[in-house]
């Protein structure tokens, strides 16, 4: 079932041809569940390439539903959802899988690492469904781990790592495929303050290196530290600080955040 885009769709952000292309575009996106629960009530949103966005709101505000739509794990009930330029409603389940494999990286609150496997293998799994061979996956995993400052933990098993390290492994796994969009769902939710700050630092560096990042959080302090904040309540955007001006956006896109490696504290 693919509902047609609603006509009340409007362009939320200024469509300046000079602006970088959108990674996320939502037009009148709604999500309802049987029983009359409206998790999202007509959301319009545009996130451009290279942005770092906080999606913030209390639990039940619809931000997790939004994450599922942005991550193409779920489809909107109505409205249009475009991710990395693809109209999600027009893609089959298999095509959505390919979209996730190549264009979206996920970071979860609870890391979701395979406990008995090494950090390298966990990160290499981020490339498993993209078609790369084992040798290439391992080599790129090694590089990604070095990028998040875990070059010395490559052969450690996932359950031997600290919480902060686990989340950095998870970030490396999300990054290893060089995605257009990094979705982080409460990335510091299961960490102590120090590790959480470290993880946020890493995210900011990735952003500085050109990665588009959406951080979903209920933590206002974290949201306030990010350049753009989109506040949710009852399935609607109640406040969008908007994309920062040209001075606030990254001036240039570097292909890889590798040059920042040494800045990552261990």
């Amino acid at each position: 079932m693919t509902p047609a885009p609603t006509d009340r769709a409007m362009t939320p952000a200024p469509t300046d041809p000079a602006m970088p292309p959108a990674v996320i575009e939502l037009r009148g996106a709604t999500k309802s569940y049987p029983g009359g629960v409206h998790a999202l009530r007509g959301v319009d949103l545009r996130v451009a390439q290279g942005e770092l966005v906080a999606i913030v709101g209390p639990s039940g505000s619809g931000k997790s539903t939004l994450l599922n739509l942005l991550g193409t794990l779920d489809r909107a009930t109505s409205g249009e959802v475009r991710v990395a330029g693809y109209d999600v409603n027009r893609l089959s389940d298999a095509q959505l899988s390919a979209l996730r494999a190549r264009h979206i990286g996920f970071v979860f609150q609870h890391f979701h690492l395979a406990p008995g496997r090494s950090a390298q293998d966990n990160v290499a799994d981020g490339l498993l469904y993209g078609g790369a061979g084992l040798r290439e996956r391992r080599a790129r995993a090694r590089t990604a781990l070095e990028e998040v400052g875990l070059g010395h933990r490559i052969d450690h098993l996932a359950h031997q790592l600290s919480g902060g390290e686990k989340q950095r492994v998870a970030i490396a796994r999300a990054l290893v495929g060089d995605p257009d969009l990094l979705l982080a769902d409460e990335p510091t939710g299961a960490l102590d303050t120090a590790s959480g700050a470290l993880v946020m630092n890493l995210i900011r560096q990735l952003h500085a290196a050109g990665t588009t990042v959406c951080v979903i959080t209920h933590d206002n302090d974290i949201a306030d530290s990010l350049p753009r904040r989109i506040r949710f309540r009852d399935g609607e955007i109640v406040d969008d600080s908007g994309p920062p001006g040209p001075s606030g956006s990254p001036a240039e896109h570097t292909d890889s955040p590798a040059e920042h490696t040494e800045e990552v504290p261990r």
Partner: protein
Amino acid sequence: MSGPALRPARLSPADILRTGASGLRTRRTRVVLSALGIAIGIATMVAVVGLSTSSRADLLARLDRLGTNLLTAEAGRNALGQDVKLPKSAVAMVERIGPVQHATATGAVDARVRRSDAVPEELASGVTVQAARPDLLDALNARVDQGSWLNPASERLPTVVLGSVAAERLGLTAPGAKILLNDRWYVVTGILAPIELVPTLDRTALVGYPSAERYLGFDGHPTTVFERSTDASVEAVQGVLARTVSPGDEGSVKVSRPSDALAAKAATDKGLTTLMLGLGAVALLVGGVGVANTMVISVLERRSEIGLRRALGATRGSIRIQFLTESLLLSALGGTAGAALGAIATFAFARTQGWIAVVPPWSLAGGLGATLVIGVVAGLYPAVRASRLHPTVALSAS
């Protein structure tokens, strides 16, 4: 803006195996236990087939050694219920049948066997006396266990050779002793090894014709004629044997082929083998249910892993093949272990029986094939269930 057409990448066979095995590596105890069910089933079936094949092979080897070309013609009773006597010329007449290579005879001697004169005459020893020709041993492929067989000299003297059971019944373990036949002392010159083709002779005391006629009142009429012919003509000889040994009274002569009894034994084992195979199949079925159960639980437990894999870009098909592969690996593990166990059991048991162990390759192939079928059948439902799991539901399970 719209990117190029999206097509999910195919996992290489090696990656399919790796992902399928990843679930097994972290749950070893459960893997061993559920593979054990399959292993027991396969081991039972392989061992049953192996043992029945080995025992049959042994029997056939024995038959081969003993020959299937021996026929016996035994005097029975005529229509009036009287004992029939075969003519003294019976052996000579049988020898005149074209394909017959060898003919000999034994004749029942009405004599009582006693260990010594201290044993009362009324006490039955369970040993009968037969008069035999010196060529009997060759005709039956029998051999002497201890001492010596009758020869042209000793067949005239009061000497006796005992069958293996007869020696046991008389309490003799070595030749040299004297026993009483009727009231005549006979020297035991030899004890025979068991005669597989004609086990009735094991219970007899064999004496020479001349000696039997002279000391025991034997009338010289044979009661059983033994003959060997070429393999190809056994049936033809069987057709004329009764008529030849007792012309005009062939109805009272019983012709039989002793090797048939051994061959029949091979056939009767079949029923037991079928029953055991059935038991093995039940064990295998239970093992399969165990694998299915393990897989269903595995899918339930690993919802968040499934969600993660979907988020990383796994298609429903990749999830399905992962769990199917896991189930296949699980049962293949059990199947391989079972086939090995079954083969080892066959070799061990065959060794204790002195057989040559035979494990038919088709039983191994069949066992492994059955395992793979079980793996697919047991894994299909859990795999489909895993692949149908909605990614958001799977991820929220943690």
